[in-house]
């Protein structure tokens, strides 16, 4: 049985992510314990709310170094993905710096509403086990106002006014800007891939 640690960073979607993993037959351990996180086979950092809140909570729990030095595959979800980058424009927040780049606010323009809320199409940027089986017309459910830029770490992008990173990965660190727990079959595929292949 795979040991999957779900970091309790205070976000409201923790329960939903846990249930989504449960639907895939994986009993995730909801934890703030560095030792439990350190010996897990997979680690997920969910987040709903603001980058500053997530970072403050991780600092308070003394988990910053634990996450930075993790050897197991790590998947950040939504704000949990945003804090993997160097910096977020949201409240001018210094983040974990595991991925290069800065998270910025999505600009409002005619017909482009922020928050970006709803089902949007994923465009593949490069192949990886994490996005295996996700097709060119597949859609995922997004709810966010800030986004990471498309860089060489971007596996899939989406477009809302401008293109932004929807799924990222560099080595053992990955993230999904959309909510896999609420993205029907596409979300289940991503989680299943993460469980099955790690970030190979």
């Amino acid at each position, binding site marked *: 049985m795979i040991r999957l640690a779900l970091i309790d960073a205070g976000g*409201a979607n923790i*329960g*939903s992510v846990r249930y989504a993993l449960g639907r895939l037959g994986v009993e995730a351990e909801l934890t703030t314990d560095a030792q439990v996180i350190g010996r897990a086979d997979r680690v997920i950092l969910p987040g709903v709310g603001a980058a500053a809140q997530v970072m403050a909570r991780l600092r308070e729990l003394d988990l910053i170094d634990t996450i930075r030095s993790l050897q197991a595959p790590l998947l950040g979800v939504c704000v949990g993905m945003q804090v993997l980058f160097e910096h977020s424009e949201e409240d001018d927040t210094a983040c974990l710096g595991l991925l290069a780049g800065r998270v910025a606010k999505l600009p409002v323009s005619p017909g482009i509403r922020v928050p970006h809320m709803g*089902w949007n199409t994923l465009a593949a940027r490069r192949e990886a086990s994490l996005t295996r089986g996700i097709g060119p017309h597949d859609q995922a459910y997004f*709810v966010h106002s800030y986004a990471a830029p498309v860089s060489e770490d971007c596996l899939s992008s989406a477009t*809302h006014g401008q293109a932004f990173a929807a799924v990222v990965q560099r080595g053992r660190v990955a993230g999904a800007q959309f909510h896999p727990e*609420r993205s029907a079959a596409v979300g289940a595929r991503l989680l299943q891939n993460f469980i099955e292949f790690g970030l190979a």
Partner: protein
Amino acid sequence: MLSRRIVPCLDVRGGRVVKGVKFRDHVDMGDIAELALRYRDAGADELVFYDIGASPEGRSVDYGWVEKVSRLLDIPFCVAGGIRSVETARAVLHAGADKVSINTPALERPALIGELATAFGVQCVVVGIDSVREADGQWRVRSYTGDPSKTRAEGLRTLDWIVQAQALGAGEIVLNCMDSDGVRRGYDVEQLTAARALCHVPLVASGGAGLPEHFAAAFQQADVDAALAASVFHSGAIAIPELKRYLRAQAIEVRNAH
């Protein structure tokens, strides 16, 4: 490209889905989780569960069913009705709801919108607005609409409230046009268009859906992000897969749920 959302709304009372005729004589429609999954399978993009009577009765929702729904459902859902504090919202969100929708409590105490946005982020905060066109031609909000005997006219112009709600931290607005609600003659495109011009966050049309053409009009003419409906879906008058096929044929971007 971002799809337009189709959102069935389910009325909940005492942990069951019910259907009311003129707000009274509620008929049991079935188990919440069962109906939620049925709509998910049909291709609904999101669901709203509205705990009817929660506000008029001065009580908040019971969260047991929220957790049950969250365990089963893999599309987003919003809970409305009786949420009047950060603590209640927290309980509902932690039980697994993706968003909370507030209506009467936001009118009573607008600061609640900001409190929720600060605590959970604007993306979790939906402000529902019940609106009526008055004799002078102005649209104005109503509160306590769950019970006709308690419904109040607030004197507040709907368009002013839309602006204010966004400034306070609303991440989405659901505009329920009561004059067209339940009549099935179409969404109030005129009112929605006026709201759209002032609304920079997602706007959801509610009230009046009777035909697939009504959905197309709301999306194409009023440029709403989502359309909410209840009776046409519950009665089977409109099936979501056919509705989506129709909308796609009108070049309206909708999600293909397979």
